[in-house]
């Protein structure tokens, strides 16, 4: 099906099903219950982030996972995509299609230039070059290009670029006559519209924006599978494995890596454009180098160089960020109320630093653990577990068709 082999088709079907059923899967607990407050993640904002960051990390993985070039400046393309999309909403139309196209084109141009220069070096120099370019973009977006009084205020600095009533919006300027800011839409469908389904105590929300982003993520995912299985993908893996042999096999590594860089930059641009499509406000903080670091973290958490890893990593990161930041001392006390008081207070006192506002700490530790003990990320962890169970069951251990890049 779709020119994919059996395993990849299975994977794609599973991911597709999960994307479409996410409003159910992410809301396992009835509305209003305490478990729902904590663990339900089926609200539009969070679900949108799952799939949008999924796109971002899928793209990053095409570069880092296949070629091994560690870019520490990918957030720049995300930010550039966001700004481009908002400009499109301001100048042309609230329809997201031109916005997304422009995001990808602009991010593609930037990544072509930055990649062309950065790829002249490899290893840590490449990382530092991308870092330098990204910080330059961030600083410019924050200062000169964001100064409202200057002639080239492209980013609106600290406030962030946002819509205004007097924007030209050439194609659909009349729509904003009622004095309210227009909303982003795909032809007639507004991104923020949702359909709520009440079943018993459960409330399921089906959000237009989520499904648009979700379908785009599936397309991105499909393209990434095709790239992984193509000669081009193999060449990229060969670059990571042995550049010397590549050169002496008559292959020019530069255009291969540059193509990978531009593709992943365009993925990031698309993700940025989608972020703006869901909420038309673009700020420079999206481009800061620590944001680039977070992209790397998501990729590593999931599993670099695997197909499903980026989606797992992005989902895991966003989900735990969400849960951990919601847990506070009160919740901890409630959970641990079965313990003797002294012990309960002691444990809560310790855990206090890891939840709520301390979620960064937990994710940082988790990230370190993964790099130290599980370089293949959660996907590798899952595979190891699966293998253990398999071995226990069959005890012959003959799974020889275990191809890499699950």
């Amino acid at each position, binding site marked *: 099906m779709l020119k994919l082999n059996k395993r990849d088709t299975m994977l794609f079907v599973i991911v597709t099903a999960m994307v479409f059923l996410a409003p159910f899967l992410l809301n396992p607990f009835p509305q209003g219950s305490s478990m729902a407050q904590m663990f339900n993640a089926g609200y539009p904002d969070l679900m949108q982030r799952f799939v949008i960051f999924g796109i971002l990390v899928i793209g990053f993985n095409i570069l880092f996972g296949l070629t091994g070039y560690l870019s520490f400046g990918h957030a720049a393309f995300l930010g550039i995509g966001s700004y481009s999309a908002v400009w499109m909403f301001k100048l042309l139309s609230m329809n997201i299609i031109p916005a997304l196209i422009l995001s990808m084109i602009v991010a593609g141009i930037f990544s072509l230039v930055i990649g062309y220069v950065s790829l002249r070096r490899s290893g840590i120099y490449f990382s530092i070059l991308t870092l330098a370019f990204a910080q330059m973009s961030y600083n410019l977006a924050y200062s000169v290009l964001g100064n409202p009084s200057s002639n080239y205020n492209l980013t609106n600095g600290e406030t962030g670029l946002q819509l205004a009533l007097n924007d030209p919006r050439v194609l659909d300027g009349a729509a904003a006559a009622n004095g309210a800011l227009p909303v982003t839409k795909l032809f007639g469908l507004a991104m923020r519209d949702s359909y709520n389904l009440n079943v018993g105590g459960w409330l399921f929300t089906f959000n237009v924006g989520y499904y648009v982003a979700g379908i785009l993520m599936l397309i991105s995912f499909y393209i990434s599978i095709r790239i992984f299985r193509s000669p081009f993908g193999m060449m990229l893996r060969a670059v990571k494995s042995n550049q010397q042999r590549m050169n002496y096999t008559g292959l020019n590594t530069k255009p291969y890596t540059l193509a990978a860089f531009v593709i992943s930059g365009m993925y990031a641009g698309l993700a940025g454009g989608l972020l703006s499509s869901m909420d038309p406000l673009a700020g420079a903080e999206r481009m800061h180098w620590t944001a680039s*670091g977070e992209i790397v973290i998501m990729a590593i958490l999931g599993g670099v160089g695997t197909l499903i890893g980026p989606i797992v990593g992005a989902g895991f990161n966003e989900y735990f960020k969400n849960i951990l930041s919601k847990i506070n001392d009160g919740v901890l006390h409630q959970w641990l109320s079965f313990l003797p008081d002294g012990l309960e207070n002691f444990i809560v006192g310790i855990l206090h630093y890891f939840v709520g506002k301390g979620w960064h700490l937990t994710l940082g530790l988790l990230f370190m653990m993964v790099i130290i003990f599980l370089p293949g990320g959660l996907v590798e962890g899952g595979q190891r577990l699966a293998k253990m169970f398999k071995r226990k069951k069959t005890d012959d251990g003959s799974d020889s068709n275990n191809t890499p890049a699950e």
Partner: protein
Amino acid sequence: MDQILLQILNGLDKGSAYALIALGLTLIFGTLGVVNFAHGALFMIGAFCAVTLQRILNISTVTTDPTKTDFLGNPATIKTPVVETWFGPEMGASIIDWSVPLAILFAIPIMAAVGFIMERGLIKHFYKRPHADQILVTFGLAIVLQEVIKAFYGANPIPTPAPEAFRGSFDFGTYLGYEANAIIYPYWRMVYFAFSAVIIAAVFAFLQFTTFGMVVRAGMADRETVGLLGINIDKRFTIMFAIAACVAGLAGVMYAPINSPNYHMGMDFLVLSFVVVVVGGMGSLPGAVLAGFMLGILEAFASMNQVKAIFPGIDQIIIYLVAIIIILTRPRGLMGRRGVMEE
């Protein structure tokens, strides 16, 4: 002319900080071959050593003075710092006043311990792993360290004043025949510059004139051969890591009055320090120092209004621009050895 002097002076203190951090980074990269993204965090921990000492010195016994009342009518409370009861009010007050310089003594053992634990506990296991893994694990560590600091000290910058005697500014210009107030320079920045010069000189002297330093330099040049000579290079490298941590930490301690410590100051300095290392040349100690001061001064010049009028925003990107040009045209940096990390 006075403008030029002023900008050079302005560049010196930032340049000093860049140079000190880059020096530590280079020591670690040169000896251990590890790209340490947690080095900025060490700088930040140093700054918080100053904060901590200041807080410790301000621990007070609280007594109530029944003869006076505060505006609510309650008996007024008087806080007496413990050091004042120990050393007498005057001596105690000046100890508190001098808490930042005193924090140097406080920070050395702490930073050495932090460095030691970091190297033995984590970095050691990453010598053989690719640079990308080293970058990632130390980046993770940097996040963890900064979050720990944030958990204990909060997210806001904590003002940490310099001693009273250094709080003013020095009117440089009048000595050189310029008008009054043409070149004003805060005393503490001069102290910072002198301090960093001393530290840099000490590190170089240590490497140049001690047997230990000689072995380390030999190890930087050719680790395997030194290992073959039967010298336990690993142990020395651990000590070097601790020293590098101290250098970064002390840079942080003394920087606290210039820029109130906050938990993300490490990350802010890290990227620039890496750029400094690359410009100076990976693994070159003099290169790191030279590039640190050079880029600090360059940044100061770029932030002059006259320059900004011609190239808007140049002050924000000048350092990166220089780094990109250097990496592309001369990958071994200003003073790097040929063949070290050149590809």
